[in-house]
């Protein structure tokens, strides 16, 4: 695994020089087997192999003497390999094979642990199988219509797509494949089922599996371009997932369950970002979130020590005017800094709603700091931190954009969908939290009860309830006793 990581670093570096490296194994169209490393693939392989390396090292200790250890080793290597292939696939056949192999590896990884009640089962296999079949269908249409298209050449997929119902079918199938692998509604049940596997497996899944849907959109988005309806369906599913997952998080007691549902929501946000035509932001989110979640899973046992070590003191109570002033500062400072950095840093053109998200995040963080340190030094430290961190992040995004530009130049978008998509994201993101706050502060017990029921329904996996109505037992009268 370390070798793979080193190789991926080398590949990513090499690709800085030449925008694309390709390896063709068999050029018998339409059964073309080609893998290639372009800028986007360079980033992805570093991510996948890096997380794979960390997780394998972790598992070597965490699964010591565990009977599932050999199975984990085998299938985690298979999964990492499949994810690497998905990232570097340059022909539809390779993409299809790698995708299905990844699905198989996920199912086998979870099956290495047999827990009595749970352990995957249908909840795990069905959505993955459906997604695999859908992708094979979509790629089959593509190959049948346009031969073995080069997936990494910018714009080539979009050029190959025609009109008519087969292409529409392919577009919808692609949406199904993306939604299923990204654990979006209605295929969201498989991700909570993976919690039955060891922690290392959950961490590994975030390297390449959950992101694979977004990678698919970035590569094959051209198939969706002529069909705004498909984009809308994708965006709608993603937004709906955001709402239900965040609601479900609020009634999920276990830590891994919360992380898994948060992943579903984050992936929904990711898909909305790609639907909105902001591919650089999408890639940044993909990488950042993958690292975040992998680290969160590996350290999930630290919940107890975090509580134990936490500093718990009441925040100081400044006067009303001071509190308002601080709140205003918490919003104004990041706004100014963000505006300035976006305006002055060259080559970065973010969509406005993404900027709004960034502003919200920075404002909340700064407000949290100022709550405890409303004194002069605290304010200075907070504003200084904002003034340093926000432009740094914007610069990072700009650099990433510049690096990825040759690969993403032809990334598919639908005109006019940018704004609505991200506005939808904003609403979907805010809705559960805002509703919770309303329910808590405005005395509307029915609203809170209704939300509670909604959240419970969202949290329950969609396996049907087992009700033995088919067993023919005569209904006995109450009180009759038969021994």
């Amino acid at each position, binding site marked *: 695994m370390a070798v793979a990581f080193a190789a991926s670093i080398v590949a990513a570096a090499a690709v800085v020089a030449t925008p694309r490296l390709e390896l063709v194994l068999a050029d018998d169209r339409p059964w073309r087997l080609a893998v290639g490393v372009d800028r986007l693939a360079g980033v992805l392989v570093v991510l996948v192999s890096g997380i794979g390396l960390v997780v394998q090292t972790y598992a070597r200790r965490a699964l010591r003497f565990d009977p599932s250890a050999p199975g984990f080793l085998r299938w985690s290597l298979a999964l990492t390999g499949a994810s690497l292939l998905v990232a570097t696939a340059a022909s539809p056949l390779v993409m299809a094979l790698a995708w299905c192999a990844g699905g198989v590896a996920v199912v086998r990884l979870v099956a290495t642990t047999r827990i009595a009640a749970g352990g995957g089962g249908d909840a795990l296999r069905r959505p993955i199988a459906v997604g695999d079949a859908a992708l094979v269908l979509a790629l089959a249409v593509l190959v049948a219509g346009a031969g073995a298209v080069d997936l990494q050449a910018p714009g080539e997929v979009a050029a190959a797509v025609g009109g008519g119902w087969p292409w529409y079918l392919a577009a919808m199938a692609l949406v199904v494949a993306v939604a299923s692998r990204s654990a979006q509604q209605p295929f969201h049940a498989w991700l909570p089922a993976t919690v039955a596997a060891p922690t290392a497996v959950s961490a590994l899944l975030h390297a390449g599996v959950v992101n694979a849907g977004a990678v698919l959109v970035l590569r094959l988005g051209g198939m969706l371009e002529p069909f705004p309806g498909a984009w809308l369906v994708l965006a709608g599913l993603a937004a709906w997932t955001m709402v239900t997952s965040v609601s479900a998080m609020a009634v999920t007691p276990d*830590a891994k369950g919360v992380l898994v549902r948060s992943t579903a929501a984050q992936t929904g946000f990711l898909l909305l970002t790609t639907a909105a035509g902001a591919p650089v932001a999408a890639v940044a989110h993909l990488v950042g979130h993958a690292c975040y979640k992998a680290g969160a899973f590996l350290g999930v046992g630290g919940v107890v020590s975090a509580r134990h070590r936490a500093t718990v003191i009441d925040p100081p109570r400044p006067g009303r005017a001071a509190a308002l002033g601080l709140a205003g500062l918490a919003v104004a400072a990041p706004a100014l800094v963000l505006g300035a950095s976006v305006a002055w840093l060259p080559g970065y053109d973010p969509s406005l709603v993404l900027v709004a998200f960034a502003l919200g995040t920075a404002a909340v963080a700064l407000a949290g700091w100022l709550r405890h340190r409303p004194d002069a030094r*605290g304010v200075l430290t907070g504003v200084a931190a904002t003034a340093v961190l926000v432009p740094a992040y914007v610069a990072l995004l700009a650099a990433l954009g510049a690096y990825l530009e040759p690969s993403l130049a032809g990334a598919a978008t639908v005109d006019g969908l940018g704004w609505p998509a991200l506005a939808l994201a904003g609403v979907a993101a805010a809705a559960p939290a805002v509703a919770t706050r309303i329910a808590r502060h405005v005395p509307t017990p029915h609203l809170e009860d209704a939300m509670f029921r909604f959240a419970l329904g969202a949290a329950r996996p969609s396996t049907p309830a087992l009700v033995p109505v088919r067993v023919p037992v005569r209904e006995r009268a109450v009180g009759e006793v038969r021994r």
Partner: protein
Amino acid sequence: MSAAEQDLHPSPRNPLVAAPDQAAGSAAPAPVGGLPLEPALAPDVLSPLQAALELLPPAPPLSELAAVNPLAGLDHLRFEDAAVVAAHVFGADAYLPLGAYRDAWASGRISADDLRQAFAHRAAAAPGGAPRPHDPVVTDPRVEVTDVLVADLDIAPEAPAPARQPMTPAEWWDAATGDAVRAEVDRRVDQWVGLALGLTGARLRGPVERHGLFAAWCDAAARDRSLPAAARHRVAALHGAPEAAIVEALVRLGVPDSDVHDVVVGEVTARPGWAARLAWEAAHGRYRRPPLEALAELVAVRLGLTMALLPTGAAAPGAPEPAATAAGAVVGPPPEARAWAVAVHLGVEPRPEVLEAIGAVLSHLGPERRALWHAALEAGPRRALVDALLPLGTRPRRAAAVARPRPAAQVVCCIDVRSEALRRHLERLGDYETLGFAGFFGLPMAWRRLDRDHAEASCPLVVEPSVEVSERAADPHDAAALRRRRHGVAGLASATTGAAKGAVSPYLWAEAFGWVAGPAAAARTLAPTAAARLAGRGGRGGDRRSGAVEVDLDAIPVRARAELAEGALRTMGLTSGFAPAVVLCGHGSTTTANPYEAALRCGACGGRDGTDNARTMAAVLQDPEVRRALAERGIAIPDDTVFVAAGHDTTTDRVALVGPPPAGLPRRSVLERLAADLAAAGDAVAAERAGDLPGARPGSARRARRRAWDWAEPTPEWGLAGNLAFVIGDRSLTRGTALGRRAFLHSYDRDADHDGALLTGILAGPALVTQWINAAYHFSVTAPDVFGAGSKALHNPVGVAGVLSGPDGDLRLGLPRQSVAAEALVHEPLRLLLVVDAPLERVERALDGAERTRDLVVNEWVALVARDELGRWWRRAGDGWQPTSPTPPTLPTLPTPTTPPSPTTAPPEPRGATHVPH
């Protein structure tokens, strides 16, 4: 302990419980199902609930995790009987599988002597005569008792693993029809109990908070689309008090009155983890209400859901017959057949007298042969331990040592088994005297850290804190700066949590923070020690260690301080002969991403770091007013004696003095030398332990220490695994002996405690705590699915309440597999041996004063040995005492005393002594 003593107080929602001043039956009962139900006809659900509450183990949350005996509710029964009940109700085994005992015999782990000793002990307790272990059973051909027992073990049929008997309507239905109704009920109800417990992540629990578990569930289930319409209608018919709902559900299901007790107990014990946590939280935590009421709600929800899912009257059929070989109902072959089979296996002709003799031997075995074999398994290590103890008179005891020159320092450690190694290595390095005392140093206190606004109890689970101690800045000018720094830390935490859990912020927060979190996770996995040092966690407790923060005793009046100090010193036996420095060494543990970290810390402090108690007691004893008060009470502490606190981190084995050097210390070099020796002793302990840890290299203290910072390491240290005995006696009993970190050591001076009050205190308190620890490890090994927590790799923490294995299931009780096993089992489930260095009559009197411990001894949950005036060890058996080893006939009838016998007096006859006739 569970709040079994909680009163049932009448609440407005509880019409079945009459107020105490109301005549029973005068309160109008709530109509059930439209029919007015007279109290006399309503099945009693409260006494089964009470019984179930007592059956449940105490289940503190992970943040206060201290080992508890999972069968604490059954320790009034004999161990074997409790094993039967546990198998029936929980499906939990109390012994190892048969194959383990066969392997132990084959490999020599169990020797013939062990078997004879176990048999003698068992036979002595039985009424009537018993075959003597050394006499042959059959003379021609010669067949010994051991041969009979081994043959019986060889031919024993493989019993299936103990499984819970079907006790609830859902289980009956599943057994009869092969459905999975119970799993469905479990799955749905678990989520509700999780909400009731008010756990992290579950922020939307308003309805449960407002209305209670049962009412909220009724309301939600009546509108739950995932239930069929008929089920929803049935749920809608339930309302009112949980007890009334239970009755209604029982009636609708057609459960006959005779089964009501089993059904209610069965519903509670179906998910013992969740139920036990609910009972605990109801008594001590956030879901505050009488525990019986909480359990009633739980049973009401479970039975209500069962009633909704099953057709009416579905529970009326009789329970399926339990399998003949189900555990608990260990019905073996009839005795004659068994004796016959043994005779045949031995190759002896099954003549009537042979069968009778063999049957006499087997009758002492009973149907559960593993009980005797387990005793034989325990016999070997116990004998080895007792033999390793130094005989009477080898070294002068403490009281006699007063005339000696003062030791360089006295170090008081916790009774924890890990302190045994530290004490051993320390004594080798210099003229140090070590003592063992419960790690909370006699302080029932609630501790408030400087960076916290509330106090946490820092004493054993069975003790209520009575004083509150807090920290403050040593230099008042620093207080503001310290406060600001704490606010800074809290501000950073508030910023990150606020961003991670806000409305729109989590998305970009995860993305932005991920660029930092990713490399951090990589560093923590690939180079844990370096990452920890970089994060500033390498040197923990900087402020406390350097003395910038000190203990604030102002809340305790001087008289209370003096009382606490006196109590501690007297129990320690440290009332005279003080060394220039007395170190109070508390212990804690450092681990990363370990939900069970509190189990590795000091159990005597309720799962916290004992260093805080040590600092407090040191501050108390340094107080001049306290010293004056102590002098008035007869304890004269010399002016040049200083009390300092130290902390022993048992994962890294770093031992260091805590706090600034006390003022006015004439010889500073004493403390410096002491600090150096403590650190060296810690290094020696780490090197000694390194060989035992899986994946570490023997002798490499560095690799052993790395585990504290490694978040992937499931076994950072072995903790209390392997604990075997609790030795109550002077250090002269154990000094220099390598006990392999298997013994708890408590200082006790047999010459200073004539009325036995100190011994009673030790037997009532620390002995009980150590038995709980021993039982927790025992059942984690023998019943890993019920009372053990499974593999850590699957652990899914539920707030700080507990862990699940996987996405759902029962909250796990007990210890994870990696705490008791590596590739093979590391902790042998041997019941605790209490070794008391005190005359037998005094031990009897002390046991009378410590009733619970007495019950444990009589019922064979622990074994007790004591030493008489001549230095012979006697074991408590039945109503009296037995010599610890059955003497073979070739030895003389009177054992040779090891000390010069007193010239005129004969050795006193122990009361009720049972002499095995020679």
